[in-house]
């Protein structure tokens, strides 16, 4: 039985659609297989970081003062305009480092916690930044912000699991502000300002590998002293270069529970697969154009017919 042109075209359309579906699914699967071989990102060889031990911190806030001085975040920046100085209640556009207090209502335990950029091994902020405004140094792993390319979209601010990057909400030249491990001081061979002033060595600076060893040594020498007998940041969120030892639960000092797979690696998996080499979009596009082309010719015929019937100019 011969196929009418209508049926043929219909079958062609259905066939193209099916082909497109099959083609893109297989492409996605293939790229999925290809990408699943990708290893998880690791810290660079000379990755530096900090180790913070809540059992040693006395809440003196010398680190807050030192950070403000080293980064030119002067008290003037904190004024509300009526001469009143603001004490930061959180990291913000003039506070790159802060000490907070965990003190539950029953007061049975308390802890200080130092908060600043965690310098993640696989940073979510870097993964989301459109034009590489936030970049991770290949040598030291320090994440820095580039004012020349940042568009101020604040995607980094909402995607950071530790709520670190902060936006300057005032003024018409806003910046993204976050700890950059005092990169100028590091370049001179010095250590960051906060670690250099801590009187009790609650926060220390060093290579990430060395700090991990130090942390594990402390845990071994004082079993039961540190929460869960482990160091936070070894694997959390893919690993961070700023590590925490705490005598209270990590959630209580604001360190979120994270899986060992980093957010970009876990959540952007399918995005990467679908857009790999733009293969899937290209296949879909090609098949769509094919179908549309067939229908377009028909549509043009209809338009001509209508024009003849009504005497009015055809409308596309």
């Amino acid at each position, binding site marked *: 039985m011969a196929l009418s042109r209508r049926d043929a075209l219909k079958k062609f359309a259905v066939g193209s659609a099916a082909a497109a579906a099959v083609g893109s699914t297989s492409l996605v699967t293939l790229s999925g297989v290809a990408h699943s071989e990708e290893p998880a990102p690791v810290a660079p060889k000379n990755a530096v970081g900090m180790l913070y031990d809540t059992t040693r911190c006395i809440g003196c806030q010398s680190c807050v003062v030192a950070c403000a001085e080293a980064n030119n975040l002067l008290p003037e920046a904190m004024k509300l305009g009526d001469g009143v100085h603001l004490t930061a209640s959180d990291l913000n556009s003039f506070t790159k480092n802060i000490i907070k207090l965990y003190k539950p209502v029953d007061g049975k335990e308390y802890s200080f916690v130092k908060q600043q950029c965690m310098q993640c091994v696989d940073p979510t902020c870097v993964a989301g930044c459109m034009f590489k405004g936030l970049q991770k140094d290949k040598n030291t792993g320090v994440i820095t912000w580039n004012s020349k390319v940042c568009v101020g979209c604040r995607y980094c601010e909402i995607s950071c699991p530790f709520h670190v990057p902060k936006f300057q909400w005032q003024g018409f030249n*806003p910046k993204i502000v976050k700890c950059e491990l005092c990169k100028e001081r590091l370049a001179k061979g010095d250590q960051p300002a906060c670690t250099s002033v801590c009187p009790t060595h609650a926060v220390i600076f060093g290579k990430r590998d060395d700090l991990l060893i130090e942390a594990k040594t402390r845990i071994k020498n004082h079993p039961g002293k540190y929460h869960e007998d482990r160091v936070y940041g070894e694997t959390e969120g893919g690993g961070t270069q700023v590590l925490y030892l705490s005598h209270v639960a990590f959630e209580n000092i604001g360190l979120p529970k994270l899986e060992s797979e980093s957010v970009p690696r876990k959540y952007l998996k399918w995005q990467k697969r679908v857009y790999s080499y733009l293969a899937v979009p290209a296949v879909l596009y090609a098949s769509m154009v094919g179908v549309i082309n067939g229908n377009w010719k028909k549509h043009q015929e209809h338009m001509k017919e209508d024009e003849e019937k009504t005497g009015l100019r055809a409308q596309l």
Partner: protein
Amino acid sequence: MNIERWDRCVPVFNVPLLTKPFKLICALGALALGLVTYRELSGLGPASGMNDAYAWGIWKTFNIMVLTGLGSGGFSIGIAAWIFRRHRLHVVMRTALLTSFLAYASGLMLLGVDVGRPWNFYWVFTPWRWNLHSPLLEVAVCMPTYAMFPLLMENVPPVLDWFHKRRPQFRPLIEKAEKVMYKFYPLVVGLAYILPAMHQSSLGALMLLGGNRVHGLWQTPLLPLLYVWAAAFMGFACVAGTLLFCSLVWDRPFDVDVLSEMNRITAWIIGSWMFVRIFDIVIEGKIGLAFAMNIYAGLFWIEMLFLGVAIVMLIDSAKYKDARLMFHAHLVAAVGGMLYRFNPTTLAFQPKPGAFYFPSAIELLISVGFVSLAIAAFVWAVKNLAILPAPTYSWYQMEAREQDAKSGAALTPNYAVTDSNILL
């Protein structure tokens, strides 16, 4: 209004442009532009309620992520018409394309207001600077490309028609231009479907990086797929609702067959969408979250309720050719879709404990104002260009009215069969 068959597109000829409501809408738009100046001078903080926890406010999450979903009529109706060969939908294509273009234009303009350092946006033209893994990059490249190239091109025919009719000296030029355009038309139209598919899904991918701070009932690897699927039915709902509303306020005939077909397609899209959504939640073992006694479960059920009721209303109104119910149905479907696309960005997103966000008055006014600008542009366009569908005899009525106007004869208020009131 009466019920007819839509054959071609006819401008709104029986209503003057500068009515009171139109002036009000323009005033809202002008107010928004004035407030934008304030935002540019004093920064985002004073002009909005955004804070360090909720760094994305309604300008991004609503005007862009939600309203461009509504403005996906060109995308979804286009695919239904051109790929699935729903011929009858061609007559509403121009309306769909115009609503899409205006939704995108107003959204993208507001995006320019929302970003903090817009002078650096030129890096979008330097591919070596692109971070290819970023979903936001995909949106930033794809959305303006789509709006300024395929979508704009698809909106050109009504303008060409206007010139063809009103400026006879350009006729040969226009016909030549059309010939050139028609040669590449399928390529352009194909782009007009693949690009929105990409960036509407990337809009969904944006909140993937929220990780587990987006509530489990919304966070899923299927988020991009669900977003673009939702854009599909939201586009239908928006265009159908617009058509019904325009028919109402300008006393134009409407075509229940076309609208019923749109209803059925919309119902099918919503139904399959809901199936995938719920299936995904069940497969990932998150169904328990839907029965927790908290606001997130409540939001989820409101969404499901709206969309479930919408399906019923859509099918019912199509069966009984009930225009009132149709309008309600599309309204409910649109609200359900908007709620779905809005939730993971704000209501179901808890960036850190204790965080709260509510847009400030200025933020609301700017948001509403930009939508008003889009509406004002829409009203201006449909009153001057042949965009809204109508029966063929409406065209003759329009021409007759023009003759009367030229010859100085008294103009009757309108040529509609039934008396109605001019609302807009």
